[in-house]
């Protein structure tokens, strides 16, 4: 009966979401405070029922209720408890339930933390979130219900795909989905602004922390996914430009553009129309991502198991989202003002260039991802677009962007003196060129593109340091005051995030150029070397885990005779998937290099095949990802935005009539 309870809770959540998408809007229209207030309780109620629903599914997994089809398909009794829990989102239906649960959580958070927003604004934001909720809860209930029964249930479940029985599974999907769903909040703010005709700088301040937070989760989700793929897939790749990966990268690119465009909207009142469009597009791209991943349309060779009904439903959702929002946009957008003017050498113009590059990059990746589908649909042939294409296209677009990352914060708003900017930055420029040019020599061969990337990474870090130093000001003021001024979270957050980007750039440039990979054959006692490291196979052993058996190799790694690490790569055979051996690579991580060993097949004569990797600077990538997220978190937590919101509530309640208020346009 418990599964039915989950189903029932989901139905109730759908009903509340329906009410939430209608009543507050009506209230805002009629100026009825009670109806507007209902949004908050409805959002809270929706969250409660979605939590209950998710809890029920989790309980079904813990209890091993195999009469629930989804549970039987994704867990087995001997699966460790933690992986029975993560199996909740180990498949399509459950991951969708997690998605709507997180949507409910964001909705409740907005309702709880934005009490200070003008009530019309909050009512509209929550109403739009309610509509998104209706779409996705209905999708879950009607096409992908995780509570569906099979009677009689099997005695034992099929077990979760062994690849997913990994700590990465605990973190990656919830983080990524938090990001995806967060873009719905950004979207809701944009739609509320359009519906209310209220697109003033205050709006930009309110939506900025939410946007930043959504971006933080998206960043973390992607970074953790890359980190997981890196050690789990056993070939040390972290990004493959796979359509499914691109589906998460596209909204990240537009969200990044949005963050920067919002800065202009907030500080200078400019780019309003563009900011709104970016907010809409970012959310639409997450829905498109869901379509790509869940309809099987792109990887059509594998469309076998996917249900065309799901694809049609998601396409319907996407259509509603896009046409609904773009119609409102076309109707309202022209009424908003242009904001202040600026010279060609100004922070605005550089941020505009940033947005142009990010958008071009996003569209290029978008085209590359969907091009095979387009050709196929039009009957023009079947092609693949993969890493060689994306690498060739993406890098040239990113290099100028990296230059801008360092330049932007150093240039003043409105109008800057280019000569002055150059005078300030020339030493930094020189040092970056020299340092970036010499750095590759520490690893051997010199490649121009690698050196250029490293120069740009140095450039970003050094300009940031210079900017912070400038903020610290002259020594005449007391240090504490100067620190307080300079260490303002949003300012520091920006530079941290930029520094994180620089680290990621270093890692990508280094590992792409200097990575070493070797296939070797080793019998116990034999050794092989790669990139100056000696790998000696001590012995092979057979070990038993909770629900798997494995061949494990004990490999000693040494450099110039000194032991470095003892690695134990495994080849695992899960009880439920014995025909599908899994590589469990083993890594030794150090600040400037990873040594990575994968165990291959048993060869004749007691030998085994191994793949040895030397991966320089990989740690920098993960540190960079963390810094990006940390920077975003700092900026989102800046007191400024919270104060702005609470002040706004007291000082300027929205128009009481609820009629759209027009902002003067020029």
């Amino acid at each position, binding site marked *: 009966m418990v599964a039915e309870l989950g189903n029932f809770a989901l139905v109730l959540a759908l009903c509340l979401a329906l009410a939430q998408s209608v009543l507050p809007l009506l209230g805002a229209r009629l100026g009825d405070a009670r109806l507007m207030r209902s949004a908050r309780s409805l959002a809270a109620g929706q969250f409660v029922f979605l939590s209950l629903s998710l809890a029920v599914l989790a309980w079904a997994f813990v209890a091993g209720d195999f009469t629930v089809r989804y549970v039987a398909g994704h867990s087995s009794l001997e699966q460790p408890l933690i992986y029975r829990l993560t199996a909740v989102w180990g498949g399509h239906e459950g991951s969708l339930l997690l998605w709507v649960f997180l949507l409910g959580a964001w909705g409740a958070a907005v309702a709880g933390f934005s009490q200070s927003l003008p009530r019309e604004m909050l009512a509209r934001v929550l109403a739009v979130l309610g509509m998104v909720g209706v779409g996705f809860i209905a999708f879950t209930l009607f096409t992908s219900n995780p509570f569906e029964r099979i009677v009689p249930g099997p005695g034992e479940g099929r077990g979760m795909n062994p690849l997913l029985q990994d700590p990465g599974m605990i973190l990656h999907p919830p983080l990524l989905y938090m990001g995806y769903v967060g873009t719905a909040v950004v979207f809701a703010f944009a739609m509320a602004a359009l519906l209310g005709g209220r697109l003033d700088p205050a709006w930009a301040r309110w939506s900025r922390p939410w946007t930043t937070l959504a971006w933080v989760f998206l960043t973390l989700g992607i970074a953790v996914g890359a980190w997981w793929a890196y050690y789990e897939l056993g070939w040390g790749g972290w990004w493959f430009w796979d359509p499914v990966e691109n589906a998460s990268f596209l909204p990240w690119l537009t969200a990044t553009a949005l963050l920067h465009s919002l800065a202009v909207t907030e500080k200078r009142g400019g780019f309003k129309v563009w900011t709104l*469009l970016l907010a809409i597009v970012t959310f639409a791209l997450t829905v498109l991502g869901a*379509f790509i991943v869940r*309809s*099987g*349309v*792109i990887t*059509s*060779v*594998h*469309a*076998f198991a996917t249900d*065309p009904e799901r*694809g*049609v439903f998601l*396409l319907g959702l*996407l*259509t509603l989202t*896009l*046409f609904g929002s*773009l*119609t409102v*946009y*076309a109707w309202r*957008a*022209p009424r908003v003002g242009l904001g202040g003017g600026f010279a060609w050498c100004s922070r605005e113009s550089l941020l505009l260039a940033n947005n142009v590059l990010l958008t071009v990059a996003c569209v290029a990746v978008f085209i590359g991802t*969907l091009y095979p*589908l*387009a050709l*196929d*649909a*039009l009957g023009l*042939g*079947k092609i693949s677009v993969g890493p060689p294409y994306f690498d060739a296209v993406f890098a040239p677009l990113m290099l100028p962007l990296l230059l801008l990352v360092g330049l932007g914060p150093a240039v003043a708003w409105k109008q800057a003196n280019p000569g002055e900017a150059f005078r300030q930055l020339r030493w930094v420029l020189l040092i970056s060129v020299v340092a970036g040019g010499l750095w590759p020599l520490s690893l051997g061969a010199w490649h121009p593109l690698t050196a250029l990337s490293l120069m740009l990474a140095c450039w970003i870090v050094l300009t940031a340091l210079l900017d912070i130093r400038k903020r610290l000001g002259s020594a005449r003021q007391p240090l504490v005051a100067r620190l307080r001024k300079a260490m303002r979270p949003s300012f520091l957050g920006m530079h941290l995030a930029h520094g994180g980007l620089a680290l990621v750039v270093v890692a990508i440039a280094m590992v792409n150029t200097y990575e070493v990979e070797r296939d070797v054959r080793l019998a116990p006692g034999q050794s092989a070397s790669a990139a100056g490291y000696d790998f000696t196979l001590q012995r092979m052993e057979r070990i038993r885990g909770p629900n798997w058996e494995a061949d494990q190799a004990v490999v000693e790694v040494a450099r110039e005779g000194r032991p470095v690490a003892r690695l134990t790569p495994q080849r695992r055979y899960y009880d439920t998937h014995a025909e599908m051996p899994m590589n469990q690579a083993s890594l030794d991580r150090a600040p400037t290099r990873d040594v990575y060993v994968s165990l291959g097949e048993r060869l004749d004569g007691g030998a085994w095949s191994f793949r040895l990797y030397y991966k320089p600077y990989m740690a920098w990538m993960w540190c960079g990802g963390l810094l990006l997220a940390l920077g975003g978190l700092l900026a989102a937590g800046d007191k400024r935005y919270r104060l702005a919101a609470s002040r706004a509530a007291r000082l300027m309640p929205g128009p009481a009539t609820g009629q759209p208020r027009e902002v003067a346009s020029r």
Partner: protein
Amino acid sequence: MKLRLLIPLVATAALLGLLFLGLGQNSRDLPSPLVGKPAPPFALEALEDAEVILTEQDFIGEVALVNVWATWCSTCRSEKPLLMELARGGIPIHAFNYRDERDAALRYLSVSDNPYRTIAYDPVGDAGIDWGVYATPETYVLDAEGVIRYKRIGPLTRQLLLDEVLPLIERLRAETPRAERRARQAKRIAPS
């Protein structure tokens, strides 16, 4: 201004239309550029007798099917009754026994029907690459000249046979003058 706002709407409509078309796409339609090309050459042992070397010439001579199968492939097993019907109906079927073990394959054929006229044994998938095989089962239609005229990736179905394969075979047979076909048959039978 109006036009600028219309552009996103039109672009969106186009994108959605494309995605919809993509949904309706038959995902099994993998590319088969070999259609229209001569059967690729190969030289493999016969399944029944390792001493006999078969080449593509053994598949050529009349309109015929070439089926790629293996004992580990359950779909192949389920499509075999259809192949039997075709074989009984007088359509020659040649085969690659793909990535299989000879003993297992022979045992399997000895306890069940054998629709195949010639079976080339391809234990490591060498001819598989030459013939552009994706996976088992796959079925080709060769015309009398040995040109590949059709390829099916995945199992044959009765519907597919009625709609596509049998009409094609009829047409190809009509292309080959009857007398010439007889002559070739006679030539093939004579040495054996």
